[in-house]
Each structure stands twice: as structure tokens, then as C-alpha cells.
């Protein structure tokens, strides 16, 4: 698992902590990736659709 903490499961349960980073913070990088994929997908999808319309003429 990316970013897996060094502490074992027992410690995490005892700490009631988030377990995807181990340091209690969000993953800015992956959040930005998700946002970028959404934006790019709409742009690329629109371009592909436009190409289909031009090809079919």
C-alpha cells in the first residue's frame, strides 16, 4: 500500500488514526491527480466527439 505507515495495525487501532498515510494528513498529490483527470477527461472527450462529427461528414 503506497504510504503505508511503519506502525502496525495494533498501534493504529489504539491511536484511532487514519491509516492511509500514517501521519494524519490527506494526500494532496492524489487529490490533484483526481481533479486533473476529471478536467482532462472532459476536454479530451469533447475533442474526440468533435473529431467524430468531422469524420462522419
Amino acid at each position, binding site marked *: 500500500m503506497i504510504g503505508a505507515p511503519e506502525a502496525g495495525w495494533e498501534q493504529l487501532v489504539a491511536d484511532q488514526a*487514519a491509516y492511509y498515510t500514517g501521519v494524519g494528513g490527506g494526500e494532496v498529490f492524489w487529490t490533484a491527480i483526481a481533479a486533473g483527470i476529471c478536467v482532462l477527461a*472532459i476536454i479530451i472527450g469533447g475533442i474526440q*466527439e468533435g473529431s467524430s*462529427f468531422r469524420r462522419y461528414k
Partner: protein
Amino acid sequence: MEEQLAAAGVIAAEVYYYLTVPLMVIIHAGFLAYEMGATRMKNVLASGIKNILAFAFMVPTFYLFGWFTYWAFPNGLIPSPENLETAFAYANPIGEVMGPHLGDHATGVFWAAFTMFAATTASIFSGSVIERIRIGSFLVLAIALGSFFWVVGAAWGWHAGGWLVTDWGYHDFGAAGVVHMIAGFFALGVLINLGPRFGKFNADGSANDLAGHNMPMTLVGLMLIIVGFFGFLMACLLYPGAFTTNGEWGAIYGTPMTLSALGFNILMGFAGGIIGAWIFTRDPFWMMSGALAGIIACASGLDVWWPPMAFAIGFIGGAILKPSARFFENLGIDDAVGAVTVHGTVGLWGVLAMGIFGSGYGALADAGGPQITFIGQLVGAGVMFSLGFFPGYILSLILRIFGVLRVPHHAEIAGLDPVKVPAMAYPEGIPVSPASQH
């Protein structure tokens, strides 16, 4: 012992809201079947793709900013510092609780349930614009509606701290205004700019029926939406103990509510809507739309209606479908599936019915809090109409000015499937029997 009971209550609440999510996914299976059935054969897969993508894009965008919007905007157009602090604590997309967290059993299931509300809102809009909208523009509009504008409406009118509730006593248990009016009138705003399908209207203004290719699929789809609505309305309650302070179930406003009330009134509204639509149309499409209309008509007051009253309110919801659809058609609006009528007009009826028949109940749990009034519901209806119509109109106008709103004429005539879908819906065709030729 008390600690163990409290822990069990939290786990039970988590399970309860989690189970509403797959039920609400059934709404999308229903919308998918409904839209594809209402589409002509040459466009059927394009409609399906559009519907599926609306759902898909709601998930990440609601994660990134939709959930944050709900918590940030209850007090109006500009978030207050207190609400911003709450939003950053509960809904920051790079915050600790917006992911697996052993100390937080609530955020994920609440976010998931609300995401499904967002996806439902976008799906409502999706059906009205079939057969001629470009996919990129559709997605921009769906995201704006599903991950922002309806969420603002929810922050204002479906939140115990929302200004429509605290200042005007607005009451909308099942989101007739917050989801259905906003989505229906957003669709109206877009349809004005999108224009009708080619062949819908004649030169003299009379309308042609552009029948979908599979009415049975549409009917089954509408019934699946009804199934999913039980999950939607179930998710509108606050679980006793875990999220209310008096050990009882509550509406989102903290006011009293029970699953028993939902059991009575959803079914009565559903039945009244079907019967109302049947009597005035005899048309199976409008009958099943009547089922949805009946529930939407009752939605605002599902917590307070006496069941026979819910039946009557639902009956009226079904009865006004055809006149409303005809009204919009006479204005030159081509609403392929009646979304503006079923959700906009009937949602408006639902919000006002709350004011007509439910005035005097407290809008919040506090004894000294605002009461539900007709004026408050009217103000709320005006706000919901505006939150839907004006963004839909303005955004689609901008897209139209840039020439990216509607598909080219040659593509619309040929059919969107042969033009842009790398698959065939019916590779062997559909057999036609003489009995179907009438």
C-alpha cells in the same frame, strides 16, 4: 455497558446509511433504462453513455468540492467563518476524515449518500437533453448542477442551520424543492438554449411525438427509480442516538420522524400519483411518471402527512402531469422525458402543498423556533426555481455562444450512435411484427 450500547448505535447507523447507497444506485440503473428506452434507436447508446458518465463525474467532483459546498454555504451566498471552519473540518478533500479513518465512522457513509443525491440530481437533467447535446457541455452542466447548485440549495433549505429554514421556516423533508425543483428548472434553462430536436415541431408550431424505441424498457426503468427512492428517502432521516440527541429518529432538521411515516406515505403517494396520471392520460409512460410524481408531490411533508392526505396530494401530482407537459410544449420546449414537468412543476406543487396543508408545524426541533408557513414555502420555492433556472440558462447560453452546446445537424440526422459510438445497440436489428404497426 452504556459505552458498548453507544458503540453499537454508531455501527448500526453506519450500516443503515451504507445500505441506502446501493439502493440509490438502483435509481441510476432505472434512469439508464428509462433514458435509453425513451431514445430513438439511432441514439440509444449515446444516451446510455451520457447517463453513465453523469454518474461517474458526480463522484470525484462531489468529493473535491460538492461536500465542502454543503457545509460552507448554509448562511447564504458568502460562507461565514464558522461555516468555513466546519467545512474544512468535515469536507476538506485533502483533510484527514475524507478517507478511511478508524476514529470517524460517519463521514464516508454520509458523503456517499449525498453523492448519490448529487448523481440523482444530474440524472434528472440528463433525460431532458437526449439526442442533441454535446457530451463535453453536458458534463460541464451536469457537474455544475450536481456538485454545486443543488448543494447550495441543500445548504440553504435542507440543513438545520440553513437560512431558508432558520429565517423562513422552510421545510422540505424529501427534497422536493432542493433536488427536484432545482434539477427540473435547471433543465428548463438549458432546453431554452439547446433547442428542440429536429422534427419535433412543425412550421405551424404543432408538435410531433418522437417516440422512444422501447417503452417497456422505460417503464421498467421508472419502476427501478421507485425502488431506489426508498433508499433516497431512507437516507433523509437522522439515525436515532447516533445523530439525534433525544434517542428518536429525526428529519434532517432535527424534527421528529419515523420509518413508519415513510412506509405509509411513500406508498400512498406513489399509488395516488399512478392513479391520477392514469385517469387523465391512459398513457403508460405518464402513469409510471405519475408514480414518481406522486412521491415527489408528497416529499416535502412525508414526515407529517396523514396517509390518505398523502394519497390525495400524490393524486394531484399525477393529474397535473399532462397539462404541465402540454404547457411547456406549447412554449416550444422539447423536453424529451418530461423532466421539467415531473420534477420542476410537481416539485413546486410539493413545496407549496407543505405550506398549504402543513403550516403551523415547527420547522426546527426548538419550541421557540420558526414555524412552517405558506409564505415561507413560497419564498423557498422561488429560491429553488432561481437556483436551478438561472444557472442552467446562463451556463448553457455561454456554451451555445462558443458553439459547443449542440451536436452538428448532420450528426443529429444520421444518429449519434453511428457517428460517435464504437458499438451497436442492436447488431441484428429489432424484429417488427405486423401487430406493432398501427
